């Protein structure tokens, strides 16, 4: 195999997959964030950080077109997600996968059926192939032997992993993960981190992750943006370790040093 198609993205340069310009978001009269500008590049693991209530999940919902911005634009794979309608919108959504915070598995379907559903909707593959792909995706998240279980019969962490399997069953270009490791035990959470890294590095999938698991962020994130509720904007942007060591923003310092290493915190 030639290496040309398999170059490992280094996460710092490359094509922009998501471009956010002048985004103001909120609900009715309440403005959460004003004038956000950032880019997400192909193949990078991009983490959105922020305190609770700062609008991390809301930003994610804007990026997948569930909410409309109050002002500004979000381009996903070259199209404005808020303006896109009909077939154009479907084409964008076909290229992204989303894992919701609570998993959002369909309770009336087995795990296999849940994971197979996007294939049934978007492809014309034979049934045997769909089943094989869905089972393999479940195996990839460590649930290969639970394909016939109902979501209610497995634990919360397993539901979350099944939801990730469903989100990536179509090999999306961009995978949006809302709090992927919250509620998982440290071992499963570390496995999940490795999986995310493998998908990004070997398959070139772009990851947009909302999280506040600092250990996981330092382990996998190529770049983070930190949403600050006070200033309604991005407090810091960059590689997490560099931010922790060099940022002089007091809130960024408190956030990143808090659980990472207490002894390093300046007295």
């Amino acid at each position, binding site marked *: 195999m030639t290496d040309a198609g398999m170059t490992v993205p280094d996460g710092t340069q490359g094509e922009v997959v998501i471009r956010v310009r002048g985004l103001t978001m909120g609900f009715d009269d309440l403005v959460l964030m004003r004038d956000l500008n950032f880019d997400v590049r192909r193949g990078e693991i991009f983490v959105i950080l922020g305190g609770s209530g700062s609008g991390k999940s809301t930003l994610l919902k804007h990026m997948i077109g569930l909410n409309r911005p109050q002002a500004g634009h979000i381009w996903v794979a070259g199209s404005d997600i808020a303006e896109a309608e009909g077939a154009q919108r479907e084409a964008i959504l076909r290229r992204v996968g989303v894992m919701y915070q609570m998993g959002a598995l369909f309770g009336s379907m087995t795990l296999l059926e849940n994971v197979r559903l996007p294939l049934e909707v978007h*492809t014309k593959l034979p049934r045997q192939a769909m089943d094989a792909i869905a089972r393999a995706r479940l195996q990839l998240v460590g649930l290969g032997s639970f394909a016939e279980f109902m979501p209610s019969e497995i634990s919360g962490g397993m539901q979350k992993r099944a939801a990730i399997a469903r989100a990536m069953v179509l090999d999306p270009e961009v995978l949006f993960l809302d709090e992927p490791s919250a509620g998982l035990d440290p071992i499963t959470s570390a496995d999940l981190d490795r999986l995310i890294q493998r998908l990004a590095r070997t398959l070139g999938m772009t990851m947009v992750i909302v999280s506040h698991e600092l250990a996981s962020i330092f382990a996998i994130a190529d770049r983070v943006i930190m949403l600050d509720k006070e200033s309604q904007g991005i407090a810091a942007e960059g590689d997490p370790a560099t931010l922790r060591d060099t940022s002089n923003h007091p809130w960024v310092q408190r956030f990143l040093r808090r659980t990472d290493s207490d002894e390093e915190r300046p007295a």
Partner: protein
Amino acid sequence: MDSTAASAEPPFEYDATVDPAPRLRLSGRLDVHAVEQHWGSLRRRARDLGQQAAGAVLVDLRGVEYCDGAGAALLHALEQDFARADAEVRFEGMGRMVEEQLAPYRELDAVEPARAADGRGWWQGWMDGVDRVGRAAHSQFSFVGELTRAVGSALRHPRQVRWGDTLRVAEAAGFQALPIVSLIAFLLGVILAFQSAIAMRQFGGEIFVANLVAVSLFRELGPLMMAILLAGRSGAAFAAEIGTMKVNEEVNALKTMGLDPVRFLVLPKVLAGLLVAPLLALYANMIGLIGAAVVMQGFGIPWVAFFNQVTSALSLSDLFSGLVKAVVFGLVVAGVGCLRGLQTGSGAASVGLSTTSAVVTSIILIVVLDGVFAVLFYHLGV
């Protein structure tokens, strides 16, 4: 990998050769579109090749630029096809991406399902059925017990009852049901009067329509119709509300706070049901009589004559037997709705099941109890 270049990348192609050695060459983008197109044909070629090969087959992947999950599914299916034809496969030029994608498929071959297939005999199935019925009966009896205890303690300590909730439920189940009860009761009165008046007219006995309508409404149809409406409107709502709370673990939250769900959730609803059912039945009776009276105008019976006939036809026992039934029906509808809500499993679908089951069970019980009351009142001479 650059997906804007996806269209620029060479399309998927394959060719199979037997000379000098059996060889299957794949190249281009091995993605879901390629797999959609070539799944059947490529596997047929592979089976043929495997049979011709009688030994080893070389699968050349050097030209594969991209491989997604569907591509890996195809490669794995090819592997199995070759194996079935007793041919040994050797992959050449498998890149990291293909390897990564193919790994879970290969792992799966060794994975056992976490739950063995259901291989139990009919006897075990039968016993499971008996077990289920037993458990259902047990949970219903214990619910009746808990409810009785809660009502008993409410009577002894009326201050502990959540009267605010009770009144709110009574408003939703009673006051807000008035429009639909009015409509149905009025039409029922109209229909009863009209149908019987046509028959009665042949004997010149139109005035006795008043007796017929009044007695059948007060003793039977008023409470029965009210109960069915209550089951459809409020029994279903109780089951859905408590069921959703159960699914969201709110019921568990109540228990861990030391609050008894029966006393906290069920009692207000059951008390509200007991309160509004006889009132709704009485209201339905009145509206039904008005409907009948309107029809009788058309048959030449004036208002005064109609209502005089009604008062002479009805006895207090007619009124009270109907109201007793209504109270019991109200208890059954509210109780069954809450019971089904508390029996909800997990997931959105089970809330739907509970709601359906609440309405069906209520209506069956109402009809059966109505029969019991008919026999009971006959023997009591009421």
